[in-house]
């Protein structure tokens, strides 16, 4: 059980670091990276539970594979959007993006 606790703690720390990055960083690239960090923290949880959980099974590992796939796709789309925004605004500063308001 100790192993599970260490994995979960590590995952929580990674998640909080990612969250901090998402909330505070100006650079959109860094924000995307932080999101990846949060996703991976979740992946860590899934894998840890699949090994040390109450009912260990492969489901968690398969889930994490899916997550990685989706994360890759997400990163591709996100970076593409970023490039488009950069072309329009010549900036990657998140503070200057308020298109959602319009």
């Amino acid at each position, binding site marked *: 059980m100790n192993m599970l606790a260490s994995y979960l703690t590590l995952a929580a720390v990674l998640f909080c670091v990612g*969250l901090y990055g*998402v*909330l505070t960083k100006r650079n959109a690239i860094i924000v995307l990276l932080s999101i990846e960090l949060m996703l991976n923290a979740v992946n860590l949880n899934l894998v840890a539970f699949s090994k040390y959980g109450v009912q260990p099974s492969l489901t968690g590992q398969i889930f994490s594979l899916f997550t990685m796939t989706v994360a890759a796709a997400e990163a591709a789309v996100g970076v593409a959007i970023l490039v488009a925004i950069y072309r329009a605004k010549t900036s990657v500063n*998140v*503070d200057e*993006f*308020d298109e*959602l*308001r*319009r």
Partner: protein
Amino acid sequence: MSSLAEYAWLVPVFPAAAFAALTAMGRGAGRAGAWIGTLASLVSLILSLLIAGQRLSGTAEEYSNHFDWIQVGNTTLPIGFEVTNLTSLMLVVVTLVSFLVNLYSQGYMKDDERISTFFAYVALFSASMLGLVLSYNLLTMYIFWELVGVCSFLLVGFWFRKPEARAAAKKAFIVTRIGDLGLLIAILLLFWYMPNHELDFTNLHNVFGTQTGVISTGITTLIALLIFLGAVGKSGQFPLHVWLPDAMEGPTPISALIHAATMVAAGVFLVARTFDIFHASQAAMDTVAVIGAFTAIFAATIGLAQNDIKRILAYSTVSQLGYMMLALGVGSVSAAMFHLFTHAFFKALLFLGAGSVIHSVHTQDIREMGGLGGRMKITAWTFGIGALALSGIPPLAGFWSKDAVLTAALDGHPVYFVVGVVAAFFTALYMARLFFLVFAGKPRGDAHAHESPAVMTIPLVVLAVLAALAGFVQTPFNGWFGEWLTGEAEQEHASGLVIIVSTAVGLLGVYLGWLIYAKGTVRRDIVSSRMPGVVRLLERKYYVDELYHYVIVKPLEGLGKLLIAFDDYVVDGAVRLAGMSASAIGRLNTRLQSGQVQGYVLTALIGLVILALAVAGRRFW
């Protein structure tokens, strides 16, 4: 044998139909509408005369007919009509004055663009008043009682573009409402206490007149006083007399019809109709007599100091109605009704004469008139007859009826008699003042006075004849009228004292008025120079209006302002608070909507934390 009384219900139907027709035709009816109203009143008059004639000739049974109007459980509320000698007399008085006023208004109102509306209102009033007179029970009577009040309101405020007329109409309606409320409560009490909830006059007569002890004395007194409150409101008795002089803002024919001859007499008629209730309670009788006597002298003194021709007549009306109440209070229905009967003619005559004068000189201030006698001969003569009749100069009608009242008062209490005699003196004095200032002397105004058209003078002549002769139906030597009216044989008491005293004070008043206002041997300011306070008091009508203004109107206005403030600040404040808080929350939320994704994430995070805390916190509850 069929009696014409069976068709008495048709009498108010004609004016009601005229009202409906005129309303349907609208303002376009014009002069034609006026003739419809007059024609309807003529038909009513003829029918009334036929009914009264039949009652006069034979010993016809009293006729009443009714049908059930509302049925609730075992209780029914009937409405119907009843013809007695008293009601047939009132029918004739009302229809006759109504017809003459209709005729007169053809001339008086001919230049008014709302002439057909005027005749519609007059027709509605006639219908309501006749309905009131014919009523078979108190419920029916109350309905018509309110209707005549509405008509009075409409007609006082007929020239509603004048602010005074609007104010007077409101005043008339609101002040009489106080009395109406009393009457309504009295009817409810009667409904509660009467066996089988009967409200018709026959049963009232049986319960209060012939049987005794069905209803306790205290309740009887209460009911009688509440009914009297209604009569006080309608008949302009003190302390609710204030509306009647102001009601003179209405067209003059209306003053003659409603505020002199018919509607204001409804209070007297009501008391006479429910007289058995009053008779069962000495306290109520005393109240009626005291109020009546006080009003008689109170209003007569005010009449001495007024300068508006119609207001003098209005106060005179209040005073004469006081006489009628006095007669009722001392137990003489026949004297009261006799005075009502004669008063209707000579007061209608005086008002119509006053209208003729106003029509000619376009002012109501008697100080601006004068010397009209030469140029308005018919008006002057007929007005003179009316004034003498009102002053109680034999052998005109007012003399005999006032005599009957004073004789009854002498039987009641010497104080009533003395008050009545003094009031009679004042009456003669103010009528002499009015007559001599208007018709004698030199013209003071620059108006080109001219005699009114025949359509206006004919009613004057008819009324003058009646004012001169109507008194002979009952003289102290011939009690036939009272016997016919009340069904009880009157002892024919010719009181020499009363005849001599009342004639003397009448002549004295007229002579004094002649000395002061026509001949000028007594200076006009003889009283005002020595006792300016008294004259001022009379000119200001004993400050009753001011008293009401400061004691009732102002506090009520204050209360109204307070409630408005409550509405503005508390009720509206709550509404505004709700609205403002909603829009404030909205503004807050728009600020949240910054478009900054990071801000959204932060908000979501805070929400999540709060949710987590709440879930965790539940453990400690």
